[in-house]
C-alpha cells in the first residue's frame, strides 16, 4: 500500500497547472460565458495535447488507455483553473462510447468514429442522461442523449438557458438520430455517470483548493481595524474548516479513482462518497471565500467570481449530495 501520487502523477499535475496558469483561462471562461467559444476551444486543444482527454480513451482508439487516477489528477487541475466547457461530459462520453464499443452494440461504430477524435481534442461532446439539460450543447460538436436503453446523437438544442454560473450554458437537446437501442446502453451510461461523478468531484476539489488559496492570500493582505483580517480568530477557524473539508475529501477522490480503475464492485459507492464530500467541501469553501472577501467577492469583476459561481453547480452536477448519499447507503 502506497496511497500517494507517484512522482509522474505529480509532475503531470504540475505541468498542467503551469500550462493552465499561463493560458489565460479566466478570459477564455468569460468569452465562453458570452457564447464566444474560440478561446475555449484553443484551450481544449492544449488540454488534448497535454494528454487529458486521452486518459479516458483506450489505446486501440488512439488514447492513453483508461487511467482514472490520472484523469482525477488532471481534473483537479481543471477545477483549480476553472476551465470552461463540457470537459466532464466529453470524458464521460468517451467512457460511454468505449463501453458501447466493448459490448459490440449497435453504436460501436460511433466509438471508432469519435474516440480517436476525442483523444485528439478535435471533438467536443456533451452528454445528457436523465436530466433535462445538456451542458454547453451550443459549443459541442454533438450531444449524446441517453434515455433508458436508447442513445441518440443530435446537433440541435433549444435556446440556451443561462445558469447561475454563466460559464455553464444549459439547453435542451432536441431531436437527433438513434445511435443505439440496446441493454448495453444503460449499463454504459451508468459507467459514464460514475466517471462523470469522479471527474466532477476532482474538479470540485481543485476548485476548492484554488478558492482557499486565494482567500488565505486575501486575508493575509487585507487589513481591517489596523490588523490583517487573517488574524481574527473567526476568520482563522472558518478557513481551518475549509481546509479540513478539502483535505479529507481528497483521499476519497483518489480512492474512488483507484476503485474505478480496478473495476471494483465498490466503485459506484466510492465515487458517490467522493462526489458528495468533494462537492460539499468545494461549495463550503466558496461560501467562505465569498464571506471573507466581503463585497469584493460578490462582484463579477474579480476572476474569483468564476470560481465562486462554479462551486454549487459542480456540487450538484451528475449527482447532488443527496443522490450520492443515497447511493452510499445502497452499499
Amino acid at each position, binding site marked *: 500500500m502506497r496511497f500517494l501520487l507517484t512522482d509522474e502523477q505529480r509532475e503531470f499535475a504540475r505541468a498542467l497547472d503551469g500550462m493552465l496558469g499561463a493560458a489565460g483561462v479566466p478570459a477564455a471562461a468569460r468569452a465562453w460565458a458570452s457564447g464566444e467559444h474560440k478561446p475555449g476551444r484553443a484551450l481544449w486543444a492544449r488540454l488534448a495535447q497535454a494528454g487529458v482527454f486521452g486518459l479516458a480513451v483506450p489505446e486501440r482508439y488512439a488514447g492513453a488507455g483508461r487511467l482514472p487516477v490520472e484523469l482525477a489528477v488532471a481534473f483537479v487541475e481543471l477545477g483549480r483553473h476553472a476551465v470552461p466547457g463540457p470537459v466532464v461530459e466529453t470524458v464521460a462520453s468517451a467512457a460511454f462510447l468505449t463501453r458501447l464499443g466493448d459490448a459490440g452494440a449497435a453504436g460501436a461504430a460511433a466509438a471508432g468514429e469519435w474516440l480517436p477524435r476525442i483523444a485528439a481534442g478535435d471533438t467536443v461532446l456533451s452528454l445528457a442522461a436523465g436530466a433535462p439539460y445538456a451542458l454547453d450543447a451550443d459549443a459541442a460538436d454533438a450531444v449524446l442523449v441517453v434515455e433508458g436503453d436508447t442513445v441518440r446523437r443530435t446537433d440541435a438544442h433549444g435556446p440556451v438557458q443561462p445558469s447561475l454560473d454563466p460559464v455553464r450554458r444549459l439547453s435542451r437537446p432536441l431531436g437527433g438520430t438513434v445511435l443505439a437501442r440496446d441493454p448495453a446502453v444503460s449499463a454504459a451510461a451508468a459507467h459514464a455517470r460514475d466517471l462523470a461523478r469522479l471527474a466532477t468531484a476532482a474538479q470540485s476539489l481543485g476548485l476548492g483548493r484554488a478558492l482557499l488559496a486565494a482567500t488565505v492570500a486575501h486575508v493575509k493582505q487585507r487589513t481591517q481595524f489596523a490588523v490583517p483580517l487573517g488574524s481574527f480568530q*473567526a476568520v482563522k477557524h472558518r478557513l481551518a474548516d475549509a481546509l479540513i473539508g478539502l483535505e479529507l475529501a481528497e483521499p476519497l477522490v483518489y480512492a474512488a479513482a483507484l476503485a474505478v480503475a480496478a473495476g471494483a464492485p465498490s466503485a459506484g459507492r466510492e465515487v458517490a462518497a467522493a462526489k458528495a464530500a468533494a462537492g460539499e467541501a468545494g461549495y463550503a469553501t466558496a461560501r467562505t471565500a465569498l464571506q471573507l472577501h466581503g463585497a469584493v467577492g460578490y462582484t463579477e469583476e474579480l476572476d474569483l467570481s468564476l470560481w465562486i459561481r462554479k462551486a454549487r453547480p459542480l456540487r450538484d452536477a451528475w449527482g447532488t449530495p443527496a443522490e450520492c448519499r443515497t447511493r452510499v447507503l445502497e452499499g
Partner: protein
Amino acid sequence: MDLGFSAAEHAFRDEARSWLAGHVPATPLPSLETAEGFAAHREWERTLFADRWSVVTWPEEHGGRGASLVQWLLFEEEYHAAGAPGRVAQNGISLLAPTLFEHGTDEQRARVLRPMASGEVVWAQAWSEPESGSDLASLRSTATRTTGGWLLDGQKTWSSRAAFADRAFGLFRSDPDTARPHQGLTYLMFPLDAPGVTVRPIGRLDGKPAFAELFLDEVFVPDADVIGEPGQGWRVAMSTAGNERGLTLRSPGRYTAAAERLAALWRAAPAGTDPALGGRVADALTGARAYQLFAYAQASRLAAGHSLGAEPSLNKVFWSELDLALHETALELLGPYGALSDEAVEAPAHGSWAEGYTFALAGPIYAGTNEIQRDIIAERLLGLPKGRR
C-alpha cells in the same frame, strides 16, 4: 400578552391587502438591477406613493399614514404575500429618512422626503470606501470647506443602486486633524449627476450592476445638504443605525411570504425528492415565524417605550442566515431547474428563486458583516470583554 390585532390594525391590514390585490403587477417587473427594471420599479414607487402606501409610517404631511410599527409589519406581510415588487426607494427610506427625521432641518425634510418616497429621486448610500469595509471609521474621502458649501473628493464603493440612482448620501472627512478616527466626519447629501462625479457600475455575482464605485473630484455640495453639524457625522449616522432601523431593514413579511412559497414548492415536489428537504422546509417556516414573532415583540417593546439597544444585531444575523438557508433549500427542491439564472426563459417562478438566492448570498456581508454582528452581540448583549478578536 396578546397577539390579537386591534380593529384599527385589522382595518389597516385589510385596506392594504385590497389595494395590493388591485395594483400589484400580474407578472413580475424586470430585475431591479437593470436599467429597464429600475425604471419600472421607479414607476411602481410612484403608484405606491400616489395612494400613500410608499412610506406608511411617515407623518401624513410627508406622504405617509402615520402608521405604527405594528401596522408597518402588517403592511409588509401583505406586501410580500402579494408578491409585490422590490423597493427601489428602500435605501433612501430606510437609511437616509430616519436620519433626516432625527437630525435634518424642516427645510431638508420638506425638500427631500416626498421626492424620495415617490421614486422621483432615488437615493444610493455611499458609506464604504475601498480600504474601509467593516471598519467604517477609517474613511478617507474628504469634504473641504468652500464658499457656501463643501467640495467632496475621494472614492466610495459598494454604493447600492448607484448605477441608476439620482443622489447619494454618506460620510466625509471634513477635519483631517482629529485625534480619533470617528471624529471630524460630516454627513452630506450629493447629486450623482453633478460635475466631478464619475459613476462606475460594478456587476455583482450575476453580472447585474447592483452597485457602483463613485469617484468624486471637487464635487460641490451646498451647506443646505449637510445633515446635522459639520464634524458630527459619525454621531449623526450612528444615532439611527440601530434600534428601529435594524428591525425595519428587512421586514419579517419578506421571509414569511418566501417560506410559504417554499412550502408550496415542497408540496408540489416530484416523487423521489430528497425527504430530508422536508425538515429544511419546516425549519424555514419556523424560522420565518420566529422572526415575525420576534419583531412583534420588539415592536411591542418599542411601543411600550423601551429601547432595543444592540438587539438588531440578532435580527441581522438571523434573517440573513434564514434567507440563505431558505433559498438554498428552494434551489435543491427545484432540482435541475434550480441551476438556472433568473434570466433563463425556463427559470421557475420567473427567476425569483435564482434572484433571491443571489441576493441572499450577500446578506451575511452587507449592513455589517455577520462576524461584526456576532462581536456586537457578544460584547454588548452578553457583556463579554472587548478588544481582542
